[in-house]
C-alpha cells in the first residue's frame, strides 16, 4: 500500500466508522450499558468526587441548623400549600453553603449576630425568644433602606437568608406546584391559549392560522412522490 492509498483507507475508515460502530453495538450491549450508567447522573469522575466530598461534610453546627430552620419558618410560615420542612429548605441551605462557599462567612456571622442581639436585648438566645420577640428582631433587619445602596451587615444577612429560603421553597415540588408552573410538557404546544390572548386584547392573525401546525395531524408522516416532491 503506498502512502496515498493508506491515507485514503484511513479517510474512508473514518467515514465508515459510524456504520461499523452501529453494526457491532448488539454484541457488547452490556458493555455499552455499563458505560452509560457509569456516570449515573451525568457526572464525570471529577464531578462525582466533588459531589461525594460535599455530601460527606457538614458545614453548619446543629445549633445553627436549628436557627436556620426557625428563621425559614418565620420567612415562609407553613400553610396548606406547603412548608419548608417538606421542601427540605434547611438541607438545601446547608448544601448551598458548601457548594457556594463565599456565603459561609456572611451566613455564620449573621446567625451569630442574631444571638448577640437577642442576648443583649432579651437576655436569651434567638431560638428561645417568644414569637413576638423574634418578630421584633426581624422587623429590624427585614426591610432594606430603600434610600441607601449600602445596607447593614445584619440586613444583608437577612436578605441572603430570605433569598435562599424563597428559592429553596419555590424550586421544591410543593413550591413549583404553588407557583403554578405548567411547562415541561414536551411535544404538543398549541400556542397561547385563547382566553389569555383575549385578556391582553390580543389574537393570532387569521391569515397565519392555516400555516400553523395542525396538532391532530402531528404524527402523520410526510409523503413524497417518486421525484422527491412533498405531496402531503
Amino acid at each position, binding site marked *: 500500500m503506498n502512502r*496515498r492509498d493508506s*491515507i*485514503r483507507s484511513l*479517510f474512508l475508515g473514518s467515514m465508515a466508522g459510524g456504520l461499523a460502530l452501529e453494526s457491532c453495538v448488539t454484541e457488547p450491549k452490556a458493555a455499552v450499558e455499563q458505560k452509560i450508567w457509569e456516570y449515573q447522573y451525568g457526572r464525570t469522575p471529577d464531578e462525582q468526587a466533588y459531589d461525594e466530598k460535599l455530601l460527606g461534610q457538614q458545614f453548619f453546627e446543629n445549633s445553627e441548623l436549628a436557627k436556620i430552620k426557625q428563621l425559614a419558618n*418565620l*420567612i*415562609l*410560615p407553613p*400553610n396548606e*400549600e406547603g412548608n419548608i420542612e417538606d421542601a427540605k429548605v434547611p438541607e438545601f441551605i446547608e448544601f448551598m453553603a458548601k457548594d457556594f462557599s463565599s456565603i459561609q462567612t456572611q451566613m455564620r456571622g449573621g446567625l451569630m449576630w442574631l444571638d448577640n442581639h437577642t442576648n443583649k436585648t432579651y437576655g436569651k438566645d434567638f431560638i428561645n425568644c417568644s414569637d413576638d420577640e423574634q418578630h421584633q428582631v*426581624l422587623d429590624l433587619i*427585614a*426591610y*432594606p433602606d*430603600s434610600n441607601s445602596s449600602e445596607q447593614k451587615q445584619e440586613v444583608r444577612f437577612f*436578605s441572603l437568608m*430570605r*433569598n435562599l429560603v*424563597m*428559592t429553596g*421553597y*419555590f*424550586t421544591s415540588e410543593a*413550591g*413549583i406546584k*404553588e*407557583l*403554578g*408552573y*405548567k*411547562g*415541561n*410538557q414536551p411535544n404538543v*404546544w398549541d400556542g*397561547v*391559549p385563547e*382566553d*389569555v390572548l383575549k*385578556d*391582553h386584547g390580543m389574537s393570532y392573525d387569521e391569515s397565519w392560522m392555516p400555516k400553523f401546525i395542525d396538532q391532530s395531524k402531528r404524527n402523520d408522516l410526510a409523503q413524497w412522490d417518486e421525484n422527491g416532491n412533498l405531496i402531503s
Partner: protein
Amino acid sequence: MVGKYLHDSTGSDRMAFVPELMNRKRYNEDGVGGMHLYSPWWLDNKKLDFPRGYHIEVWGGLGMPSYGTGFNPNDLNKYLGLKVGGYGNQLREDVKKFYGSVMGMSGRGESIAREENYCEIDPTTVDEFGIPVLRFNYSWSDHERKQARHMHNTFEEIIENMGGIVLGDKPGADRDYGLLNPGRIIHEVGTTRMGSDPKKSVVNEFEQLHDADNVFIVDAGPFVSQADKNPTWTIMALSWRTSEFIIQELKKQNI
C-alpha cells in the same frame, strides 16, 4: 495570517418589568422565547453612525423555576409604590404575583473583522495536558460601541411602547454602552480566513490551506465576516462543500 481577524458577535442585554403581566394566568410557556429568524437588516446604514446590523432575541415567560427563582421576592414593589422586604406568607403572594412579569431583550450583532484582533500561542501557559493555550488580543472599536448604543435605544423604545418599565441604568460611554466583552457571545470566528490571495488569507474557497493541499479547516476559522447570527449553520454549509470537494479530489488522487 494565522490567528488574525478574530471576531465575535456583539452583544448587549436589557431587562424590563411589565406590570400588565403581573398575576398571569398559568399555561405552558416553555420554549416560546429565544426564537431565531434569519432576516435582512432593514435600517438604512447611511442614516446610522455604525456599519452592519443586529437582531434582538426576546425572552421571559413562565419558565421552570431554578436556583434564583424567588430571589428578591418583592423588589419590583418599588415600582408599584409598595413596601420592599419583609417576611411571612405575603412573600408567597409576591413571588406568584411577579412570576412571568419580567422580560428581556438581547441584541446580537455583526462586528467588524479587523487584522489587529488576533490570537496567538501563549508562550508561558499550558493546559492540564501540557498543551500551550491561546492568548487573545481583542478590542472593540467605535463601530461596535455605537451599535450597542443603538441596541439600548431600541430596547427602551420597544419596552416603553409596550408599557414596560426598563430595569437598571442605561449603560453609558464609560461602560461601552453595555457592549459585552469580546468572547462573551461565544461566536468567535476568523483566524484562518478564506481568500484567493495567500498573502491575505490562510485557506482557499474550499477551506484548503494555501500552504498544504491536504489540510482543511472545517470550523469557523475560515470566516472573513459573520452575520449577526449564530455561526453553526454556516460552518455546516461550508463543511459540506469542503467534504464534497475532498471526495472529488480524492477520487482524482489529487490529495
